[in-house]
């Protein structure tokens, strides 16, 4: 019933401390100088400016759940014990993608080429975290849309590669979300390019 919906030019709200966590920051023991802190903040701002986040989503009916298999309306079979558990009580699956665009990857490469690896690593971490946060936006948006229909979203979402939800299933997401049209490519190892691209799935269930 529902096609692929697009969300462009996103500026997601993100949890900054998770960027620091990705960089090995330990709140209890860290001794971060003002200079190092300012530099990290500058690079996070630079990342925000450089990211060009697009997200897309699609709702698909779940025909059957036979753990570990989840069968979607078009016959696609997703496999994962935890995924099956996540989607139990759900009649619809929400498939999502978010991509941070090419520019941020060019920035990371340029910084590395210029020998500024300590900057590249911050941009890399910030880009991953902020792009991932775009999926929170997708979920918040969809939650508002489905609420009047008496439906709610699962709190959690899973991405291929999580637990027994195999990374090779990125190919199914790639096809179902027409990721190619967003400038994303997938290689034989199921790695997405631009690298700051992510797929995820959540469930939709009825209120009553």
């Amino acid at each position, binding site marked *: *019933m*529902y096609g692929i*919906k*697009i*969300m*462009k*030019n*996103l*500026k997601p*709200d993100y949890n900054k401390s998770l960027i*620091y966590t990705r*960089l*090995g920051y*330990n709140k*209890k*023991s*860290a*001794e971060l*100088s*003002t*200079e*190092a802190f300012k*530099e*990290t903040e500058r690079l996070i701002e630079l990342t925000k*400016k450089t990211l060009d986040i697009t997200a897309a989503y699609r709702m698909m009916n779940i025909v059957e759940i036979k753990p570990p298999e989840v069968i979607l309306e078009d016959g696609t079979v997703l496999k994962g014990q935890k995924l099956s558990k996540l989607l139990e*009580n759900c*009649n619809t699956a929400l498939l999502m993608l978010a991509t941070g665009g090419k520019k941020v990857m060019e920035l*990371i490469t340029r910084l*590395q080429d210029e*020998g500024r*690896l*300590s*900057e*590249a*690593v911050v941009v*890399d971490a910030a880009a991953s975290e902020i792009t991932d946060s775009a999926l929170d*936006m997708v979920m*918040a*948006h969809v939650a*508002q*849309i489905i*609420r*009047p*229909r*008496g*439906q*709610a979203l699962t709190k959690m979402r899973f991405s291929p*590669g999580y637990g027994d939800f*195999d*990374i*090779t299933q990125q190919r199914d997401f790639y096809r179902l979300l027409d990721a190619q049209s967003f400038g994303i490519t997938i290689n*034989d*190892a*199921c*790695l997405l*390019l631009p690298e700051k691209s992510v797929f995820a799935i959540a469930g939709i*269930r*009825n*209120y*009553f």
Partner: protein
Amino acid sequence: MTKREFKKLFNNRIVLLDGGMGTLLQKMGMPAGVCPEKWACENTDLIQSLQKKYVEAGANIIYSFTFGANPIKLSEYGLAEETYSINKTLAMAARKAAGEKGLVAGDISSCGSLLAPYGNIEFEEAVNSFKEQIKGLLDGGVDLFVIETMMDLQEARAAIIAIKELCDLPVIATMTYEPNMRTLMGSDPVSALVTLQSLGADAVGCNCSSGPVEMVEIISKMKPYAKVPLVAKPNAGKPRFKKGKTVFDMDAESFASYAEALVEAGANALGGCCGTTPEYIEKLAEATKNLYPVEVERKPYSLACSNRQTVEIHPSLPFAVIGERLNPTGKKALKEALLKGDMDYVSDIAREQVEAGAKLLDINAGVPGIDEKDVLVSMIDAVCNAVSAPILIDTSNAEALEKALRIYPGRAIINSISGERDKLEKFLPLAKKYGAMFVLLPVNDTGVPETAEERIAIIKDVYRKARKMGFTKEDILVDGLVMTVASNPEAALEALKVINWCHKRFKTNTTMGLSNVSFGLPAREHVNSAFLAMAVANGLSTAIMNPNSKQMMDLVRASDVLSARDRSAINYTEFYSGEVVSKENASNAKEGLKSLYDAIISGDRNNIEELVRQELISGRLAKDLIDGELIPAIQKVGELYEKGKYFLPQLIRGAEAMEKAMAILTPELIKDGGESTESKGTVVIATVKGDVHDIGKNIVAMLLKNYGFNVIDLGKDVEGSRIIEAAKEHKADIIALSALMTTTMGEMPKVMELVRKEGLNCSMMVGGAVLDKNYAESFGAHYSNDAYSAVKLAEKLMNDNLH
């Protein structure tokens, strides 16, 4: 219902709205997944009975059950063609239910798809779609409109414009806010309020998303800026999933207990959203029986906003710099960019100005030979996407102005409206329709008056005409209109008289295009700065100027302190304290006060080369510097990282500083008659075939180098055979492999097989996000979980090999 009647409704009382319908109908058997509005049309008796219950419970206004009945959303059910009839039917049903006791608000919400620039629905498409819905609601007999549960301010604007273009009925507009107190698309409560009330909403507020607790804060943020009544329509707390069903965690009693707090925060109308029932409204009616609207003194500021940020303008507040650099007059590069349609350049200039301290940006697309209206809109789109600062739309083309005002998702300032008849007739109604502020330029059809007295007469005249249309002094920035002192020595003084009069007598905010004053003079910045200081002393509130001028911006910050606009010098201290620190650092480095050891510890890449050179000039030997300072320092950095005192960027910065020092010292070692530093061993490093994520591998390679290893980095996506060849060629002690994915980590045992097949006498260490120790050991490799432990592991492997 007229707007005046609507306003009167709020006199001395708390207006009650209805509660949830959707959740109630679902409980009563409306199947999930159906089109709720179509289902309601087939069950109007049930809808009416519920709406009647709300009226009986005390609701003064009930909403028609047409939340999602716009053609874009209905098209998802193949029902777009029925937009008019569905809306009319459900408006009539609500009208019947309300009878004489209640008012009916025609309910409009999001079209379900995002508007540009976030989605594919163009602004005019949304306006037209809402119009189709509104026509049905009007013919169904609604008394007013409500726009609710909006996540994007631009979509709420589209709905208000659609209503305004079809009728004069009152409009309530409520947005839904996320836990971070912003709408999903990033609008804060004040920017939403300012935009919506300026555009013509007769009441503004919030609904859905959160419970009453969170809404107290949203309402209290809005209240000091509100010219219209405020509305709160919260959910019955948070939904929870229990035993296969959704329950809301607040019962009617506890829900109603927040009425007092909401009214105290400034709410004038209360109702309920998801999870609430007629019982909740009944309790709310009881709780509000003896409550009256609170009067909060409204802040007397001029307010301009984008969809994400409001700028307050007042002589008691910090001076608001308006960036002038998005005006192509005299700017060749911008002119060329506009001719080519290069909006990235426009975005860059916008960012640059905001980073330099501009609070607002003037936007002008006046280049001969281009379609001003299209280019102006493209510039606004680019600026809105790049920065949050509100804008001044700088044009004398009425068509371009209307197009720009229509799509600007906030409250813009028109630059400018003068006493010229054409401007008054064309621009003032546009400012009114779209709720814009405007710069009042004191010129008229006879030209630019030279004296302040003549200008003041025009200001009074334009204001009189604007006031008749409903504008207040807060909606205006008067331009002092300075001309160059090169041709008229009195020009600056006359402009200052106008500013002073506006500040002291007329009580309006002011602005000026500062740089005009120095036109034709050399060293213009000095004249501009002096004039700015004089104007600020006379009460100037804003200026259109170049924020990239350090001299001018220093002056702005300093005069904010001197004129008590930056009380306790908080902004000043915050801005300049950093500068003092960085200058100290620079001078320390220059004077050689920092040791090489400290430079590595602090990762001082910028000064380390100079420090090394100074040490060499002073006669120290390269070997001493390496053994005595660099190596102990980099070991210390590693130790600090291991203890969690440093995080990854600091570890790498230490290595980067070390690398720069070694680049100078290695040739010196050889000159001193020695050899380059002894290698701890040779490592061939690569990211395996199929894997292109190499930042982790690059970090390990850099650290290994700086901890004394000879590193051969083969890059990413490397075939196993190439790794083996390199290991043979360089007599590798260790092969280090990285893989990010489960699909590529399988390459690692394959490389190990080749190592064995070729009989290479080297160890293998592996790392990467998806690996673990067990996996590594399953094919005889060693595992490290981060970059520094990889160095430790390599050292251990070399030691094990030696003993």
